[in-house]
């Protein structure tokens, strides 16, 4: 990593700022160092220094704007005198790679100035011996992740380790703030603040739509949090990639755009090509490679690839050895983007905010605009991209309010507290309510979580003898079995990567690891099947000890592997824009191929209109399909899917599943829908809704995730670590059992609250139904319509278990028995049974 013209430490040439009264002066050694580089301090860096005594500060700054140094200057200044012993500043980032990157960046000025400051990083990848030493002898600055921090607070020696802590810097806080990792981090900060009451908090964020919400999360409640806005830099330069070939009607691959993409790669130094899913990244990389006649060095990077492979790609990128990297959100945050001068987004950005943040990373020259190109994967995405571009131009970022802190994370926090030693419930409750997201938590809710952690919280008191926590005579709570602490530590974290299996090349003794795939996908493979991973086609050989063994095989056309990946937040604003566009007579702002496609939709069917509800029915893929174009945003369409499949099941229409996007719900089943009006009868919709929702796949998935975080289901056990086997209990069975015997259980309550975040309340559907009234346009066709085509490749399909499943099973069984010739074996029964017992 070179300094000089590169501005990764944020020491970009800024305006020369005069020292005004009231400003903190930099110590001489810092002045000299800046001067030697020909740099001066940025206004926001100076401000961060001036306000360093504030309990909480949030800095909103674009990438390359000197954010990191803004966060660390007060620390470096404080430590320069060399009088502080032990830990002074904690730096938290969402990515391990970022922590090591920042360490590199900081070490340079520190060593160049000869400051007596020890800086170390600590993540899951840090070797055990170093981790141990860090606890005993912590550095001045520790760079780490939320999970590693949670782990550190779980040790009995935590108070000693964190004793002198003065500051916490949370980087990329906008990314953490919208997930449970952020909640876990804030709970851990609440703990640290109890140990160090004068702790100062700093958050570093990219541009967001609601800085105040993040500020409120960051500060200790009810302390204030100042928000500092750095110069946002020039407006981003985003446009659509022009291609010779038209995009297809449906599909997520964007293979049609590859010649144009290769062209762009040739014209730029380093290009990042983002995809919305890992599977799409794999397919695109594969096709790109096939067309790469100039043998340009291109890499692939996503979260399901093996760590070493990812690190190799990251290293090559930093050294400028790659001309392009095909990637997913794994590259979204902070790691050194070297000479990236172009960002290509394949597929419509599922929300505008992420798009703007992504492209903020390209081209770190602070005063030059960041450049990005959008490549829609199909014609509908063309429309979405145009809408997104308008939104960016208007500066209209979007986002959904987060709601209160999730209680599953709170349960994990209680267990982590117990692992560190005996605790007082009152004190813990007081500590938890200093966390912004949990400020409104009632004592009763807290007690229910504590009860769950202690006894399982069941209506049936069965575990007194084996409870996890017990209350001592002096009122303090502690682990019944101190060894349980180890198990708690093994299961810290809120990231869901359950249900994946490792993939390795088949060798006699453990072949090269390639990455991971979803268990469901692995279960669908038979030896001989081929799929893509890490850009190569591999052949499935078999499953050995929960590892998928493969061999290299370039021959057959690969199946699409499914990978877990981040689910994108939805955007109601984008869908509102799109339906507005549909009302136009013509579309001069769209490329001809897309305008034609919309015109075709008008001819064979209709374009959706606000105030009316368009429903299409047609057969496809051996099933009867129904599409409801509500344009209600994804949560609304998902709710609609749940409600309508309930009605269809009741009416004997055999629904099998559904999938929802921002603008439509697609339902497939065995029986065609001839008249949709009765489906929308409000009374019928509401009747029995609770039961239907309770039994649905959406709830069960949510339950599994949340039960794992709270500790009801434990993914990692000491036994599993030894054998490498997962002994995961079926969460569906647990869910069903609770529904039957303990419907008031805490976890069902948590699950409902979680699930509702992804749904809208019934009132909204009522409103929609009333607004539409009887203005339903039902069009029956014999094949897929242009507008419906993209829905068939949507991810996030929700299965519906009902009569349809039994019908299908019966059909398939009959067919299998017939073809196997085993159907006709009917031996005659013998005489009555005779008992023969050895008494």
């Amino acid at each position: 990593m070179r300094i000089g013209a590169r501005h990764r430490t944020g020491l970009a040439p800024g305006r020369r700022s005069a020292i005004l009264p009231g400003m903190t002066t930099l110590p001489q050694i810092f002045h000299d160092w800046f001067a030697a580089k020909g740099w001066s301090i940025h206004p926001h860096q100076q401000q961060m220094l001036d306000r360093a005594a504030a309990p909480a500060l949030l800095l909103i700054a674009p990438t390359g704007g000197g954010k990191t140094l803004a966060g660390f200057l007060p620390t470096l200044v404080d430590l320069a005198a060399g009088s502080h012993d032990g830990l002074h500043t904690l730096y938290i980032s969402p990515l391990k790679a970022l922590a090591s990157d920042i360490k590199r960046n900081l070490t340079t000025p520190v060593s160049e100035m000869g400051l007596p400051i020890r800086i170390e990083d600590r993540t899951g990848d840090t070797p055990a011996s170093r981790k141990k030493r860090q606890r005993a002898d912590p550095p001045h600055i520790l760079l780490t992740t939320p999970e590693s921090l949670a782990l550190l607070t779980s040790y009995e020696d935590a108070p000693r380790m964190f004793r002198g802590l003065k500051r916490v810097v949370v980087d990329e806080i906008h990314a953490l703030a919208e997930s449970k990792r952020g909640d876990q981090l804030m709970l851990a900060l609440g703990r640290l603040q109890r140990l160090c009451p004068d702790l100062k908090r700093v958050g570093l964020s990219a541009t967001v739509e609601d800085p105040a919400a993040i500020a409120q999360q960051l500060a200790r409640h009810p302390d204030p949090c100042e928000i500092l806005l750095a110069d946002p830099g020039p407006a981003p330069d985003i446009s659509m990639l022009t291609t010779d070939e038209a995009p297809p009607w449906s599909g997520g691959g964007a293979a049609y755009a590859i010649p144009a993409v290769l062209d762009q790669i040739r014209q730029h130094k380093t290009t990042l090509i983002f995809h919305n899913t890992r599977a799409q990244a794999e397919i695109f990389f594969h096709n790109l490679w096939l067309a790469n006649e100039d043998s340009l060095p291109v890499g692939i990077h996503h979260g399901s690839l093996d760590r070493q492979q990812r690190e190799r790609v990251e290293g090559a990128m930093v050294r400028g050895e790659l001309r392009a990297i095909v990637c997913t959100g794994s590259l979204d945050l902070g790691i050194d983007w070297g000479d990236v001068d172009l960002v290509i987004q394949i597929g419509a950005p599922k929300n505008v905010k992420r798009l703007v943040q992504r492209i903020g990373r390209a081209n770190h020259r602070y005063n030059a605009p960041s450049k990005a190109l959008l490549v829609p994967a199909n014609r509908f995405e063309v429309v979405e991209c145009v809408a997104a571009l308008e939104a960016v131009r208007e500066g209209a970022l979007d986002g959904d309010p987060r709601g209160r802190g999730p209680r599953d994370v709170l349960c994990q926090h209680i267990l982590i507290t117990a692992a560190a030693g005996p605790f007082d419930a009152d004190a813990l409750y007081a500590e938890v309510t200093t966390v912004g997201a949990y400020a409104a938590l009632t004592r009763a809710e807290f007690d229910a979580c504590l009860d769950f952690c202690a006894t399982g919280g069941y209506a049936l008191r069965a575990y007194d003898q084996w409870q996890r926590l017990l209350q001592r005579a002096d009122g303090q709570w502690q682990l019944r079995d101190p060894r349980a602490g180890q198990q708690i530590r093994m299961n810290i974290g809120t990231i869901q990567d359950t249900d994946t299996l490792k993939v390795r090349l088949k060798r006699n003794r453990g072949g090269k690891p390639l990455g991971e795939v979803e268990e469901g996908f692995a279960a669908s493979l038979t030896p001989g099947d081929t799929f893509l991973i890490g850009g190569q086609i591999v052949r499935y050989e078999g499953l050995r000890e929960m590892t998928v063994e493969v061999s290299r095989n370039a021959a057959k056309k690969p199946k699409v592997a499914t990978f877990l990946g981040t689910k994108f937040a939805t955007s109601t604003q984008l869908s509102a824009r799109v339906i507005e566009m549909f009302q136009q007579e013509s579309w001069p702002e769209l490329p001809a191929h897309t305008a034609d496609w919309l015109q075709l939709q008008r001819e064979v069917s209709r374009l959706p209109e606000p105030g009316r509800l368009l429903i299409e029915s047609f057969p496809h893929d051996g099933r009867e399909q129904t599409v409801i174009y509500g344009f209600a945003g994804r949560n609304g369409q998902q709710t609609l899917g749940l409600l309508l499949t309930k009605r269809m099941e009741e009416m004997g229409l055999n629904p099998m599943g559904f999938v929802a996007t921002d603008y439509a719900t697609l339902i497939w089943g065995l029986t065609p829908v001839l008249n949709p009006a009765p489906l929308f009868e409000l009374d019928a919709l509401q009747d029995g809704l609770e039961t239907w929702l309770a039994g649905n796949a959406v709830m069960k998935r949510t339950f599994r995730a949340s039960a794992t975080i709270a500790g009801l289901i434990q993914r990692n056990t000491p036994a599993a670590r030894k054998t490498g086997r997962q002994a995961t209990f079926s969460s569906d069975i647990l869910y069903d059992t609770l529904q039957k015997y303990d419907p008031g259980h805490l976890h069902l309550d948590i699950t409902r609250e979680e699930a509702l975040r992804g749904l809208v309340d019934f009132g909204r559907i009522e409103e929609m139904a009333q607004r539409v009234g009887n203005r339903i346009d039902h069009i029956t066709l014999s094949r897929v319509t242009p507008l419906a085509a993209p829905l068939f490749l949507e991810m996030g399909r929700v299965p519906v278990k009902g009569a349809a499943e039994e019908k299908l099973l019966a059909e398939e069984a009959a067919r299998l028995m017939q073809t196997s010739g085993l159907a006709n074996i009917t031996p005659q029964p013998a005489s009555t049974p005779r008992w023969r017992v050895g008494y």
Partner: protein
Amino acid sequence: MLAPGAPMSDEQIMNCHEFTFAGAALKALGSGALWWPDAALLCVSDLHLGKSERVARRAGQSLPPYETRDTLARLAADLAHTQARTVICLGDSFDDLTAAAAVPEDERLWITQLQAGRRWIWIEGNHDPGPLEFGGEHLQDIEVEPLVFRHIASDQAEGEVSGHYHPKAAVRTRGRQISRPAFLFDSKRLVLPAYGTYTGGLRSHSAVLRKLMGPKALAILTGPVPTCVPMPR
């Protein structure tokens, strides 16, 4: 509760698959129980009662403690429908011997009630190898011609009914995979699915089951309508 000797309802008749094994006319119930009308004999395997207690004791994890009553509820329903006079629990009826001893009083009583007026046979399993403090007979195996009942399939099998493997079978159709606990049988042996609520399963295409069952083996998937398919390999 059905009156003794009352016929099954249409719904209940639907909920079983009739087949012949080693000369005996058997019915596989959708619940996973095996019903032999001619012998008025109901056989269930791998109940694993007390699993939640064992998990709490050994792993410090508190699962919902309702699996015993849930399993017994289903067993009670099967007994009511079939009016069985003999019951064979084919081994691993308890998750371990300590769990067996720790079964709460009311559930213990329930088992006793189910046993009333019936011949109840506990076959020893690998999880519960030893005497149990419950009424009934405790045996390693039992022959009821032409069948023999034991916990784990043996090498020399003829008309053998066993459990232990918790078999499951999966069928793919129109993009959906349906996987259920299943009975597996060929001309020589019949393997029962696990009946207990908190039991996992082993897919029929695993090496051990493929080796155990003959090439023409069939699988009967449990569920609302038990369904027979060639055993998936």
